[in-house]
């Protein structure tokens, strides 16, 4: 690995990489890489965003995969393997037994998402880049997810407090950012400067585009971004 002392590490979930390539904004990763930011992915994410789509018969899936493959070849994205099987299984079991409906545990996340958290913990990486909503909410505000599940499923959802506490201890100190924040900070650092007087308009357009590509950002949050980035 590179000289770790000067580098900043961000662990990327497949959701953000998918929305960044879908919006053709993955060059933002290159932009930050030039200032020593390393974007890390676990092998499961590489499989999901590159290996699997490249094997699919539908050629449209290969568009994002090829662009992401190039980012790995150029070492902007770094695949890091770590022994996370056991902790990932523990996280999976925990997250899938926090909420209960009609006496049954709600299986909220899959192995890939559990692996992400296990890898962040193992590598002591504090920042996760994640556009996916549920895992982010589990990390940040699990009771909001409980309320949402109750509203959607029209049943009472019970919480196993001890499992929730154990999970909260695991993710304690982790912070989640989305593609939208990446785009906004890139704007602050001059990424859109070549658009001259239109650069703010371009930021707004890029934020909307990331939303429509699946980044879990709300309309009012985009308005807030635009107020902040005066």
């Amino acid at each position, binding site marked *: 690995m590179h000289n770790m002392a000067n580098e900043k590490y961000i662990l990327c979930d497949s*959701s953000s990489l998918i*929305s960044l390539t879908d919006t053709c904004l993955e060059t933002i990763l290159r932009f930050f890489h030039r200032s020593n930011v390393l974007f890390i992915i676990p092998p499961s994410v590489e499989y999901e965003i590159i290996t699997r789509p490249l094997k699919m018969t539908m050629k449209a899936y290969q568009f994002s995969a090829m662009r992401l493959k190039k980012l790995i070849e150029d070492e902007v994205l770094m695949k890091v393997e770590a022994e996370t099987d056991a902790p990932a299984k523990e996280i999976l079991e925990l997250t899938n037994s926090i909420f209960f*409906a009609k006496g049954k545990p709600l299986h909220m996340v899959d192995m890939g998402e559990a692996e992400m958290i296990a890898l962040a913990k193992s590598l002591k990486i504090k920042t996760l880049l994640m556009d996916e909503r549920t*895992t982010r*909410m589990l990390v*940040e505000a699990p009771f909001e997810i409980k309320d949402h599940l109750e509203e*959607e*499923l029209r049943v009472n959802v019970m919480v196993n407090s001890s499992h929730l506490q154990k999970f909260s201890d695991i993710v304690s100190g982790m912070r989640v950012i989305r593609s939208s924040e990446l785009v906004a900070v890139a704007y602050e650092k001059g990424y859109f400067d070549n658009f001259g007087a239109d650069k703010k308009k371009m930021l707004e357009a890029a934020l909307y585009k990331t*939303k429509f590509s699946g980044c*879990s950002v709300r309309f009012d949050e985009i308005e807030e971004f635009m107020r902040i980035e005066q």
Partner: protein
Amino acid sequence: MSIKEIFDEMAGAFRRKNSRHMRKLNDKIMIETAIQFSKEMYELAVISYVLGKILSKPRFYSSQYKQNMNAIQNTLELARKAKDPLKLVPTLEREVGRLESEDPRFVVDLFTKGRLKMAAIFYAQGFSLGRASEITGIPKSEILSYAGKTMMFEKVKTEISVEKRLHFAREALGA
């Protein structure tokens, strides 16, 4: 609800051309699938969605489609009487395919669209993207793209403000 009861209701709603009933049945099945997930329930959710879609299109009631509509109805009747109704699902899918092939309007067929829509609903209900993809077999990229064009993200407020999240990002990116 048992599988047999669901097929009874689906056949009844299709016979009466009651798309509203079919949609309500689909809602019920989706909730059941979310709580006690099984592949079978998921398939039934997709079928009820597809049948609801067919019933909502007036063009399918014209004489041009009579034979195809009857074939779907007959398959549903066979399924509700069958010991294992799910064995009739491939036949049903084939019949729906024949109906669509009379006048194809989309690249994606109704069953594929139904599977994607059900996957996006799982995600919207509160299950993770990975879980929705795992349950349905639909790639994450498809679910994300669909979800991004819905209002699902507007429904859940977060405790972390944009200002604070931007602060996290600036710190992480060394800005």
